[in-house]
């Protein structure tokens, strides 16, 4: 392939592929602030802690261990050429163990997958009955309203969850394989990076999602499932069948 197709399909796609972890991090943090989206900002802040942790671990290994340890190339930074072609920031020091690229992608993979699974499996929303305290027998207490599992809203939500699970699995598979094949990574570095990243994603998502908190919802679905978030003046239904505001 040469000329314009080469530039478009090889250069552009390889550029996007190489910087994708950085791109996703920037998007979550920056758009989280610009569009006032707290779940994205939390997910972005989580990955920043993963980046600092992995870079710190790489530095610690290079300081404490010899370059070759137990016959494995675990510690030390790559050549300047490797820094230019493999590092997320061109020219910055690049270490293969643990892989920063795979740690960040593993983090996003587990975070998005967990949230997609959560919105897919969430039980249909139920609006509680209105039960005003101290109003006596004149007030009819409304029954809780349950949404049918086949309603359009539930099907749409489950579709978003399923679509996201499929998209994440396919896209991350497609993206990770070329990175693995371009000689920037080692097998041990990939395994360590994926483990650190996916465990961090799981830990942070689980922590934020305690009590099904909408702050973990990067898909933007959970708020819409809970009409109770709209605090409006309640209305009482009287036994005669009329309504009184």
């Amino acid at each position: 392939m040469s000329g314009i197709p080469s530039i478009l399909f090889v250069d552009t796609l390889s550029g996007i592929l190489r910087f994708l972890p950085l791109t996703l991090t920037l998007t979550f943090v920056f758009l989280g602030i610009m569009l006032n989206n707290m779940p994205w900002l939390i997910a972005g802040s989580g990955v920043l802690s993963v980046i600092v942790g992995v870079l710190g671990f790489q530095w610690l290994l290079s300081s404490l261990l010899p370059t070759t340890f137990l016959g494995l190339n675990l510690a030390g930074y790559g050549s300047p050429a490797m820094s230019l072609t493999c590092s997320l920031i061109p020219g910055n020091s690049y270490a293969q163990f643990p892989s920063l690229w795979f740690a960040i992608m593993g983090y996003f993979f587990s975070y998005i997958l967990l949230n997609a699974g959560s919105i897919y499996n969430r039980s249909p929303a139920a609006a509680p009955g209105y039960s005003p305290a101290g109003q006596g027998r004149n007030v009819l207490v409304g029954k809780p309203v349950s949404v049918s599992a086949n309603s359009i809203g539930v099907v749409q939500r489950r579709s978003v969850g399923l679509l996201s699970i499929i998209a994440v699995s396919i896209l991350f598979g497609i993206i990770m394989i070329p990175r693995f094949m371009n000689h920037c990574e080692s097998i041990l570095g990939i395994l360590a990076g994926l483990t650190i990243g996916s465990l961090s994603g799981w830990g942070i998502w689980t922590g934020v999602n305690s009590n099904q908190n909408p702050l973990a919802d990067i898909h933007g679905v959970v708020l819409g499932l809970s009409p109770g978030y709209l605090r409006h003046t309640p209305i009482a239904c009287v036994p005669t069948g009329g309504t009184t505001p």
Partner: protein
Amino acid sequence: MGLIEEIDRGFRYILQVLPDSLITGITVLAILLGNQTLFALAGSSLIMQALVTGIGYIIIKFNPDSVVTRIAEEPCAAGFINNYWARVRGGLANVDHPYAPSLYLATVAFFAGWGAGLKQLYAEEIDQGVISNSQTTGFLITAFIILAAVMILRIFVSNCETLVGAFVGVATGTLLGYVFSVSLGFATDRKATNIWGMPLLRDRIAAGSPIYTCQKDV
């Protein structure tokens, strides 16, 4: 290599590729999250970039001195996609950029303007406490502080923008972001811009629907 030097290089690089990173990131996230509001945002930002570039070239037509020729790889080129497009258009040393409006700052400002539009579109729901009003105001102020910081860095630290180009870029980007967000919201009954997925208040009286449904007498 010193830690400070690496952090400095990282910061400068992130700043350089910010516009391209955001548009690529939004598109990838729209696919990964199955989120139609992100598709709308990605599409709108691409239309905005085309409009701002068009305005720039109209200015060049009337004032040819306002052209800056840059080598695409230098720190002022706005990201990795633009670099490759520059090669498509005839080589690294053949990138003409108008002084005004700044495409870089227009792109960053576009998202701040979009956020301001969202705050107005969903004002009633925010007032009802779906998300905190003080939080949305705080985020909006932070967004414009970040925009101002980026503008100062681009003008005075990396020397990539002129004062006029930067201000016109920020004004154009903010205005387009706000107008696109509000118009798209009204055109789609606020569905295509509901980035938080919040429950929407409906004017049931205007729609002729009963305001409250009560349980029937048994």
